[in-house]
């Protein structure tokens, strides 16, 4: 049966409710008797709490409860943090601070009131007496002796150190004709989903069940962890992720506020709501990146890479959130990028500092790797006098070498790096661009061409590599009237799987998409699952559904064979019916469904009903790849780098819905370019957050970008039966280095070899002004 829907740009099933404002995000949900929570937060980066006076807050009319750290510590577990890294220090992390605060925005007390306005007013009336302590915001200083210690139960601020070596690095360096070194700063970013976080919790009878609505990417994990924290058996917990307004990793977590809302709802027996303000979001929702990468690359003079040394200092902030500890370790896995790097030594030190925790932000540990390898290879090319294209081509593994084992310790599933590169060169007209660059240089103008031939780790992932399992689940139920309900353990929040999963189910069963409904995000309506992150929802979650569909098809074939008096092997699915191969004989889809439910003539050994659940455990990650080419021109007056052309050739394996893939790529590229040019979370040296609003934190806006020229190559992944690699993060991962490479290329005549992100006009202006690299 030819697919009717898979591969087509099907309009999203989600959109009718989104374009009419009919959808319900957490803050749109109102429950009878609902109370509102507000949080009093630390104004200091590091301080002892001498006393907390809640009396004025408690007296405000409408206030129902005020809770502080002691009460919560006595009644509620600590925030969960994954990772079993040897010698990892695990600081105490209560939902409300006890005794000490360690970053600006840390929750200290929570107020419950009849409306949100009273709650916020009351939170401001809580008087907190602090003894300020010296703060440390520089991770290198933080790990030095004599630095202020965040967690006094430990002797220093080293959260953990970690490392490994694959291959013989020293040998590689000893044979090298040339060695290039560079320090790269991968600055701290804020995820900034447009919907801030929000939580509602309510005890529901008759089950005496705690129902939590949270703007989350991981409802099932949240259910397990909140149940543990609150001491509620998991079978009396239900978590619902309603419409979620973007996450980008920031909602892949278990946050203090989720526990507090649950605790208070249980305590007062009334529903409780908390909605994050944007300021709270900037200060108290996880940040991303924030690594210092010291890289050394050893090469032969023909450009062949021999070995690499990578030292990472990760500034993880004051506490671990859910994946804080794990994210920087991913950087090592992907450090060789799309190249044959025979030996790699990876050393990582994670430092506690007086800042919000870093955690998963779109790409999560992999953009840092891509950035450092794509930058250092350009630096090497320049030193060797090679074209950046040639050095990349020289070190690509060939398609026949896949699965390709890297010195990062992983097996790349499938790829044709050269094909994507060649296509990008053609689309961009590389020769023409270099010619134009030469002409502009003669006129004293600065134009640069930057490459990024990235690979990334997607479809997370085999369970061995993931703290709480890397599988995903899917249930397919064909109802007695022939409609189909798919429920997935993944939890999409803008990616469009209600559509793409329905495309797959409709094609497999030969029915129309209108007859398929995809449920997600409610732990009571879906099988236990892991969630949506790491570009995994379709490649892993979609595969679980695909396997359940195959089970149902086998079962339906048995019914059809019984009805047609043949064997199941002779039955095929067609649109609306099951036919006996090579004959005109068939039974309708509906007749088979009916016979499975009325169950009067069951085939021998076959049970009634049509429902199947499968759990898919992938054997590996998938590794999407591609080449991005960015062209910038620099305004000599202002130093502003302007992206004038952007070509991306991406390969995310087989595509279910090109409309959705394009959308993921666009959004990803913009986020990645924006890291290169604009975004940065800034704390001053006292740990005050200077980028606390959207005026100070530069999220890109509609007028900032040129048109992108996007193409795809398709290299199916062997890791799952549909050949999908995943598309959620590639844009972000691939784009950032191409922009920086382009700006450095533009300024190369001035002797510039590196500039740290974000490439703000004033930095470039200074270089232009000084006429050389500073």
């Amino acid at each position, binding site marked *: 049966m030819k697919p009717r829907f898979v591969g087509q740009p099907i309009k999203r099933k989600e*959109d009718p409710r*989104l*374009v009419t404002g009919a959808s319900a995000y957490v803050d749109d949900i109102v429950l009878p008797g609902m109370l509102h929570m507000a949080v009093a937060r630390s104004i200091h980066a590091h301080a002892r709490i001498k006393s907390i006076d809640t009396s004025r807050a408690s007296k405000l009319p409408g206030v129902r409860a005020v809770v502080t750290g002691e009460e919560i510590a006595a009644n509620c577990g600590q925030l969960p943090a994954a990772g079993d890294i040897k010698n990892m220090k695990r600081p105490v992390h209560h939902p409300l601070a006890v005794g000490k605060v360690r970053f600006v925005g840390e929750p200290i007390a929570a107020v419950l009131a009849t409306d949100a306005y009273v709650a916020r007013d009351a939170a401001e009336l809580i008087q907190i007496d602090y003894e300020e302590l010296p703060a440390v915001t520089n991770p290198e200083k933080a790990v030095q002796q004599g630095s202020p210690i965040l967690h006094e139960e430990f002797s220093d601020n080293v959260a953990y150190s970690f490392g490994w070596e694959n291959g013989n690095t020293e040998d590689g360096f000893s044979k090298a004709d040339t060695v290039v070194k560079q320090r790269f700063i991968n600055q701290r970013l804020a995820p900034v989903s447009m919907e801030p976080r929000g939580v509602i919790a309510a005890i529901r009878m008759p089950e005496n069940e705690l129902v939590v609505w949270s703007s989350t990417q991981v409802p099932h994990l949240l259910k397990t962890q909140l149940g543990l924290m609150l001491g509620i058996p998991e079978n009396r917990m239900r978590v619902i992720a309603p419409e979620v307004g973007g996450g980008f990793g920031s909602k892949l977590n278990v946050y203090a506020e989720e526990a507090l809302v649950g605790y208070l709802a249980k305590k007062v027996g009334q529903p409780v709501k908390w909605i994050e303000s*944007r300021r709270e979001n900037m200060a108290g929702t996880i940040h991303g990146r924030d690594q210092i990468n010291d890289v050394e690359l050893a090469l032969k003079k023909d450009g062949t890479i021999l070995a690499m040394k990578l030292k990472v200092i990760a500034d993880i902030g004051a506490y671990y959130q859910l994946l804080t500890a794990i994210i920087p370790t991913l950087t090592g896995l992907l450090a060789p990028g799309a190249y044959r790097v025979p030996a790699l030594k990876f050393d990582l030190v994670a430092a506690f500092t007086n800042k919000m925790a870093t955690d998963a932000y779109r790409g999560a540990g992999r953009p840092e790797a891509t950035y450092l390898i794509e930058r250092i290879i350009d630096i090497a090319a320049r030193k060797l006098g090679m074209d950046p294209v040639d050095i990349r081509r020289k070190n690509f593994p060939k398609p026949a070498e896949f699965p390709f084992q890297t010195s990062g310790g992983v097996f790349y599933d499938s790829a044709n790096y050269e094909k994507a590169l060649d296509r990008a060169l053609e689309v961009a007209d590389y020769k023409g661009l270099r010619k134009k660059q030469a002409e502009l240089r003669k006129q004293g103008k600065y134009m640069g061409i930057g490459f990024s031939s990235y690979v990334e780790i997607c479809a997370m992932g085999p369970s061995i590599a993931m703290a709480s399992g890397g599988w995903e689940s899917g249930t397919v139920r064909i109802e007695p009237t022939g409609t189909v309900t798919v429920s997935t353990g993944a939890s999409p929040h803008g990616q469009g799987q209600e559509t793409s999963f329905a495309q797959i189910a409709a094609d497999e069963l030969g029915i129309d998409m209108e007859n398929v409904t995809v449920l997600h995000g409610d732990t009571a309506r879906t099988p236990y699952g892991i969630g949506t992150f790491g570009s995994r929802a379709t490649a892993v979650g979609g595969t679980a559904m695909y396997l359940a569909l195959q089970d149902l098809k086998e079962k339906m074939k048995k019914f059809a064979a019984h009805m047609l008096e043949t064997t199941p092997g002779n039955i095929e699915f067609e649109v609306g019916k099951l036919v006996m191969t090579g004959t005109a004989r068939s039974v309708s889809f509906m007749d088979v469904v009916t016979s499975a439910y009325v169950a009067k003539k069951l085939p021998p050994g076959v049970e009634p009903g049509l429902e199947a659940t499968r759990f898919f455990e992938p054997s590996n990650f998938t590794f999407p790849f591609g080449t991005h080419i960015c062209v910038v021109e620099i305004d000599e007056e202002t130093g502003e780098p302007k992206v004038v052309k952007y070509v991306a050739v991406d390969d995310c394996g087989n595509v279910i819905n*090109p409309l959705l893939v394009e959308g993921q790529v666009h959004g*990803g*590229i913009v986020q990645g370019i924006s890291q290169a040019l604009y975004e940065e979370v800034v704390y001053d040296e006292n740990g005050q957050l200077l980028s606390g609003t959207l005026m100070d934190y530069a*999220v890109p806006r509609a007028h900032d*970008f040129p048109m992108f020229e996007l193409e*795809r190559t398709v290299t199916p992944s062997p890791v799952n039966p549909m050949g999908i690699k995943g598309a959620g993060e590639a844009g972000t991962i691939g784009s950032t280095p191409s922009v920086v490479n382009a700006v450095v290329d533009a300024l190369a005549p001035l002797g510039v070899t590196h500039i740290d992100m974000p490439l703000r006009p004033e930095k470039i202006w200074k270089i232009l002004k000084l006429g050389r690299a500073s």
Partner: protein
Amino acid sequence: MKTIKKSRTRLEKAHISLRVNGESVEVAFAPHKTLLEVLREDMGLTGTKHGCELGECGCCAVLVDGQPVLSCLALGLAMEGREVTTVEGMADGTSLHPLQQTFAELGAAQCGYCTPGFLLTAKVLLEKDAKPSRQEIKEALSGNICRCTGYIKIYEAVELAAARMRGEQAEPAEETIYGRQ
């Protein structure tokens, strides 16, 4: 008619009359509330979203007397006698506004949270200018932040809607929906 009455809670509620999405309504609310809060909390019109409540993101854009206004910065009290349009009022009965249709056709919404603000801002643009250039569209929408889409599909959706509103038989370009392979 603007009157302030004692309500049963300690707060005095303001009462105003206005037109919302074409209907005359009266509403009572705590006088400190912004238009955003009145719409969402006192009128049950939750289609209007908030992303900052500081005038920085455009999620809360609505139309007041046909002009885009950031509802998080406008006081509810100032709405006496005004005509307010929210995303719930964009469709004409059951038929969607062309912008709503093209946003859906091109995948210009992902998480959808910013979408109402973009739709209303773009609606005013197209009422003023039937054929805005790409640059004019970008400028008109530069006060609205979308973190998901990278904006490109949004520009394309506005252009497609504009063409249809001019009476052209416009369809999305193949490349726009299939990508290039």
